[in-house]
């Protein structure tokens, strides 16, 4: 998958210079961190001071560090690493990074004149790194030929990586300035890409595949530890809980869209159903139903109601073509919103308080644990949102479990068959209607479940929280992240919820960019950022090369390459 921009002849004659170019680039980057980037000391956390790097200057120096490491590696020409790819990624991202910062400096301080020497030095460095990457020879790497570590050591690597991840996330969320936040993200992509692109990433993937359970465990551990890094502050936790709710709902939608291949444009209504049921049965002073059962019962009622709506809306429309389903679900979403809007006693019975919604929903209280209180664990205070965070994390884990287990079962195979060729699937005895309805109602059920918690977390429900745009957002989390995968949805949900929260400066253009993103994604990468292989194949039906590539990967994953067949890892992969 290497893109060769330079002609082979140039690569041949100038190839040997590549390590030195890279070294120069790296050193320039390191140097730039010690220089001043901006004349104006009020912006971007003050980049005007020389020989005292901070913030963005520090990120630039990290580019330098990795650049130098890769240059040294390139000099020693190890046969099992491909620094060229790493350099290309590092260099290209470096250019983006520097240009972004120079542009921000120029914009915020009112002119390019305010961009000081540091940025320009770094820009030269980035160009040199990129050039070196394109000049140096490509090495075919097979990570499985790397020396094997003991399995304990592999697990240690995983744990260390997860710890790094935890710190990075905590650090990232602490950045308040939108521009610095964006530049850190760019830097992160460049640095991680530069290191992992060398083949290290493939190796990590290999280790991960061999230790799937420890990896999962470590990932969840990291997620559970996250609130402890926040030192009792609720600011980031509030965002985190919203990311979790969004991710959970999007994952439910991914069952419908990604697995069963049904386009649901009114999915938010199911989340709303759960939330409204929880609100109506809560002990809020505005609740319209006198009955106030314990929350576990409420959860089940909410989810069951949502699932019932799913069945009601699904059973007539799933018989006709998928396009109709999309529009009918859209209509259903509108019906839901309008009904919630109307059922206020003026028009129909008083259930929802109409447009005003049901506010003042009290915090959850489960087994004597009050979610509204601050609890101190190991000396670290955990506020209200941290409490919800834990519950939501459990819910997310449950939805992930449902998702993966359904996918890897008879039902999952049926869904694939339906996506591939519905008529043939039916002719082969697959109950297509039943399976589609199942996907639809399971998706609704899970969304309803999430909704019941959301109502308490939000403390209020109102119809304007459940508009079509929210459904579109959920759908794009799935589309952006990757259809049919868990990781994809997590990535998509995080991007869609976190970025607007952090980049408030450009908030007005959020929807515009988002619409454009959908079109561009469908055009160039319809399968999403982290797609399932099968989904990728489906979206590239005519791409024979891709199918053979993925085929080879599949065989590799199944350890069918006779040379590499190692029984213990076969077990690990299952």
């Amino acid at each position: 998958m290497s893109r060769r921009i330079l002609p082979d002849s140039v690569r041949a004659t100038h190839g040997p210079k590549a390590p030195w170019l890279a070294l120069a680039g790296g050193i320039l980057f390191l140097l730039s961190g010690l220089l001043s980037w901006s004349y104006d000391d009020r912006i971007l956390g003050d980049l005007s001071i020389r020989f005292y790097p901070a913030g963005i200057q520090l990120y630039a120096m990290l580019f330098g560090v990795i650049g130098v490491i890769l240059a040294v590696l390139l000099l020693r020409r190890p046969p099992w690493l491909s620094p060229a790819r790493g350099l290309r990624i590092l260099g290209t991202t470096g250019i983006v990074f520097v240009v972004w910062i120079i542009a921000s400096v120029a914009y915020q301080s009112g002119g390019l004149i305010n961009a000081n020497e540091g940025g320009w030095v770094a820009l030269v460095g980035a160009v040199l790194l990129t050039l070196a990457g394109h000049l140096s020879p490509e090495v075919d790497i097979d990570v499985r030929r790397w020396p094997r570590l003991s399995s304990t050591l592999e697990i240690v690597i995983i744990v260390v990586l997860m710890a790094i991840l935890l710190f990075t996330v905590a650090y990232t969320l602490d950045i308040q300035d939108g521009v610095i936040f964006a530049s850190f993200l760019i830097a992160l992509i460049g640095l991680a890409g530069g290191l992992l692109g060398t083949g290290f990433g493939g190796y990590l993937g290999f280790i991960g595949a061999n230790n799937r359970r420890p990896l999962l465990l470590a990932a969840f551990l990291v997620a559970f530890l996250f609130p402890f890094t926040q030192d009792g502050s609720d600011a980031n936790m509030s965002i985190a809980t919203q990311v979790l709710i969004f991710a959970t709902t999007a994952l439910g939608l991914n069952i419908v869209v990604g697995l069963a291949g049904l386009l649901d444009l009114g999915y938010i209504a199911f989340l709303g159903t759960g939330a409204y049921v929880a609100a109506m049965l809560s002990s809020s002073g505005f609740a319209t139903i006198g009955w106030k059962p314990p929350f576990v019962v409420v959860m089940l009622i909410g989810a069951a109601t949502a699932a019932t709506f799913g069945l009601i809306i699904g059973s007539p429309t799933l018989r006709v073509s998928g396009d109709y389903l999309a529009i009918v679900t859209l209509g259903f979403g509108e019906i839901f919103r309008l009904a919630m809007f109307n059922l206020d006693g003026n028009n129909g019975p008083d259930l929802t308080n109409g447009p005003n919604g049901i506010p003042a929903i009290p915090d959850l209280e489960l087994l004597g644990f009050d979610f509204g209180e601050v609890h101190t664990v190991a000396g670290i205070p955990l506020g209200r949102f941290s409490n919800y965070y834990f519950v939501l994390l459990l819910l997310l884990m449950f939805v992930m479990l449902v998702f993966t287990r359904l996918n890897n079962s008879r039902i999952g195979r049926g869904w694939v068959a339906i996506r591939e060729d519905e008529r043939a699937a039916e002719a082969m005895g697959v109950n297509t209607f039943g399976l589609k309805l199942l996907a639809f109602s399971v998706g609704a059920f899970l969304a309803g479940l999430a909704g019941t918690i959301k109502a308490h977390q939000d403390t209020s429900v109102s119809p304007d929280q459940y508009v079509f745009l929210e459904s579109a957002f959920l759908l794009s989390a799935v589309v952006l992240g990757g259809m049919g995968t868990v990781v994809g949805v997590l990535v998509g949900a995080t991007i869609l919820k976190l970025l607007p929260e952090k980049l408030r400066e450009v908030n007005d253009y959020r929807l515009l960019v988002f619409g454009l993103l959908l079109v561009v994604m469908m055009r160039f990468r319809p399968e999403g950022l982290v797609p399932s292989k099968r989904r990728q194949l489906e979206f590239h039906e005519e791409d024979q090369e891709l199918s053979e590539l993925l085929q080879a990967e599949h065989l590799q994953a199944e350890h069918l390459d006779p040379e590499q067949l190692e029984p213990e890892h076969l077990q690990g992969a299952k």
Partner: protein
Amino acid sequence: MTVTDTATTGHEAGRVTVLEASSVTMRFGGLTAVDDVSMRVHEGEIVGLIGPNGAGKTTFFNCLTGMYVPTEGTVTLKGAILPPKPLKVVRAGMARTFQNIRLFGNMTALENVMVGRYCRTSSMALTSILRGPKFKREEAATRERAQELLDYVGLGRSTELLARNMPYGDQRRLEIARALATDPQILLLDEPTAGMNPRETEETMGLIFKIREGGLAVVVIEHDMRFIFNLCDRVLCLVRGSLLVEGTPDQVQSDHRVIEAYIGGDDEEESV
């Protein structure tokens, strides 16, 4: 090939009827695609269905398998009337392949066959999520049976290949394996050798005999006359939707109406 002899002797009355189609008629608007066709297939019998393009063979298949609801007539399997629903037809024990291969291209060979097992297994959502012993047993059994069938049709080594990456001939075999996975009593093959070279055609013939020996009845649509007349115990010839001739391969082969029909046959496309 000495099997032809046993086949001709096998076609006698008194054997168990598996499939019976009586007076099946299919009209699309003003067009009568299948006109009053009756057919009876016995246990362990191979029946051929021939006819020029547009004669309504595939449409007839579609009526049998419930993909079309016939305008008139009934189809019975082992004496029970089949409802015109593909799902129920498969459950009752009739499986088919398609003229234009309709595999699940982005699934592996094994997975394709495992989909065929769908209607003979029963784990539903809750079982799949809880992963109890029943689920594990059933999943293992499905996998095992699918591998068995792949071995049976000679694709034992292609288990993990994506269907769309397989050679054409193998795709046809895979479709047969997938159909067999539904535990049918009767198998309908729609042009199983289309696009095959002579060697592959011969292998397919062997496979069909092997299937028949397993006790299944087989109905084959084919254009390759040599293939049909070598394979089948009995041959039906359809022309413009109606049954023209029925008989042993020799009888049909020598029937002048069949020859006429083929020479004068129009070249209309038909599809599923």
